[in-house]
């Protein structure tokens, strides 16, 4: 029967070891695999390393490093566990695995680069467990959501479900722009609010609801009219804007600001029993004006306030907006960039249509004039800079 020393020596004879100096040259090309325990990992790690405690190695490695031909540098604290782990990986069919001699301790002592990972605390690990289980999200994806900032335009029909789901998902900062107060007629669909809040500012009601749902979320409120004077200040610094506004001039204004600041917009709109969702990701896909060069005249486009809307409909459309937002934040799947999703609640059907970048778009084409941020009137025509330096629009 082999002693520990004999066993380790035999293992090391089967694998390849490199020292930290050589390992450092492989940063950026090889995948660094940290096989220590969580409490060690939390104290410091090699930047970019993939973390799989050795006890979970066989079970989790295929999810974390699917390519068995990928170069892998395994490390632990001192170089022993990583030697065993490298041996195991070789047995699992990984063909380019080395163990870092001396481990993280020697790496750190030699003054090489390391960072303290931002990790979920125990409460967060429980709260977001269903996310962490998804290999496409995982702890790193959840951390990314916690560091993300999403702006919701409107805390109404679409903004309510979108905000609730984004808060539940742990998006760390939610900005909410709305200047209305809660009205009893809102409660048929605006599920952020309730009877006790009638008469309160919507942003305050939203903040109360969202903070009760998830105290991790920092809710930033803007009790203002979203206009040309503040649009750039408000949207700058956000990763994604969820558009749940209710009029064309605001949507065109947002589009200009989005293209100018390159903040993507997840667009949603509803009418009676129908909804539309798409993603406007500046220069990576069409913009709002590519899809809709001009708005309809008011007599052909009654608002929900005039024409009514089924209460559940914004719940569905706003939830899809939340989903698309998370996809953008985590770079998951195929967002609705360049595609318009049309939902018909009566027919219970979803259809998608192609939305193309308009090569002549006055806002986002190569030849477009510089973007002017100014209020739109009901015609929403593109602003132009006049000879005297002033602009059209008012």
């Amino acid at each position, binding site marked *: 029967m082999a002693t520990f020393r004999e066993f380790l020596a035999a293992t090391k004879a089967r694998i390849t070891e490199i020292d930290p100096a050589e390992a450092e040259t492989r940063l950026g090309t090889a995948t660094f695999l940290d096989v220590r325990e969580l409490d060690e990992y939390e104290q410091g790690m090699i930047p970019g390393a993939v973390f799989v405690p050795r006890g979970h190695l066989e079970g989790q490695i295929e999810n974390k490093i699917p390519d068995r031909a990928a170069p892998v540098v395994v490390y632990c604290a001192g170089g022993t566990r990583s030697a065993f782990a490298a041996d195991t990986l070789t047995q699992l069919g990984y063909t380019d695995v080395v163990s870092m001699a001396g481990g993280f301790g020697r790496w750190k002592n030699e003054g090489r680069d390391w960072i303290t990972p931002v990790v979920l605390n125990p409460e967060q690990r429980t709260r977001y467990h269903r996310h962490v289980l998804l290999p496409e999200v995982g702890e790193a994806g959840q951390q990314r959501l916690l560091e993300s900032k999403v702006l919701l*335009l*409107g*805390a*109404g*029909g*679409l*903004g309510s479900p979108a905000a609730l789901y984004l808060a539940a998902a742990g998006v760390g900062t939610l900005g909410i722009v*709305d200047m*209305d107060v809660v009205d009893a007629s809102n409660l048929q669909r605006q599920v952020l609010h309730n009877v006790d809040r009638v008469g309160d500012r919507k942003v305050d009601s939203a903040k109360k609801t969202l903070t009760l749902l998830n105290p991790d979320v920092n809710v930033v409120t803007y009790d203002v009219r979203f206009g040309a004077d503040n649009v750039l200040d408000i949207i700058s610094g956000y990763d994604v804007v969820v*558009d*749940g*506004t*209710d*009029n*064309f001039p605001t*949507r065109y204004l947002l589009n200009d600001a989005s293209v100018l600041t390159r903040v993507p917009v997840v667009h*949603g*709109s*509803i*009418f*009676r*029993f*129908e909804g*539309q969702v798409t993603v406007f990701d500046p220069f990576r896909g069409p913009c709002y004006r590519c*899809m*809709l*060069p*001009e*708005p*309809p005249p008011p007599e*052909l*486009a009654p*608002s*929900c*306030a005039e024409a009514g*809307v089924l209460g559940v409909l*914004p719940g569905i459309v706003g939830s899809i907006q939340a989903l698309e937002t998370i996809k953008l934040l985590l770079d998951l799947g195929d967002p609705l960039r360049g595609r*318009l999703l*049309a939902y*018909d609640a*009566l*027919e219970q059907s979803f*259809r*998608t*249509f*192609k*939305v*193309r970048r308009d090569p002549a778009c006055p806002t986002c084409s190569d030849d477009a004039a510089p973007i002017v941020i100014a209020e739109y009137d009901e015609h929403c025509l593109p602003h132009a800079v006049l000879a005297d330096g002033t602009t059209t629009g008012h």
Partner: protein
Amino acid sequence: MAVTVLLPTLLRAHADGASSVEAEGATVGEVFQGLIARYPGMAANLIGEDGELHRFVNVYRNDDDIRYLERLGTPVSDGDEIAILPAVAGGAG
């Protein structure tokens, strides 16, 4: 050519509440002319005084925007779906 035209809520009132109608024509423009002959109320929502499709209405042959095909001259085949999607702005209210 026999095609199915999918109508948005906004236009259904003009077509006795139908969510889709069958129509004939060799191009999208011809299909719309036939549609307007049957349901005159739709005219204002689709075609402008210049005879062109309004810029605030998007029309798709199957899933392609006809603005990037041949506009109203876009040919249609038997069984095509022509979808009319008007701009809607509602959301907050």
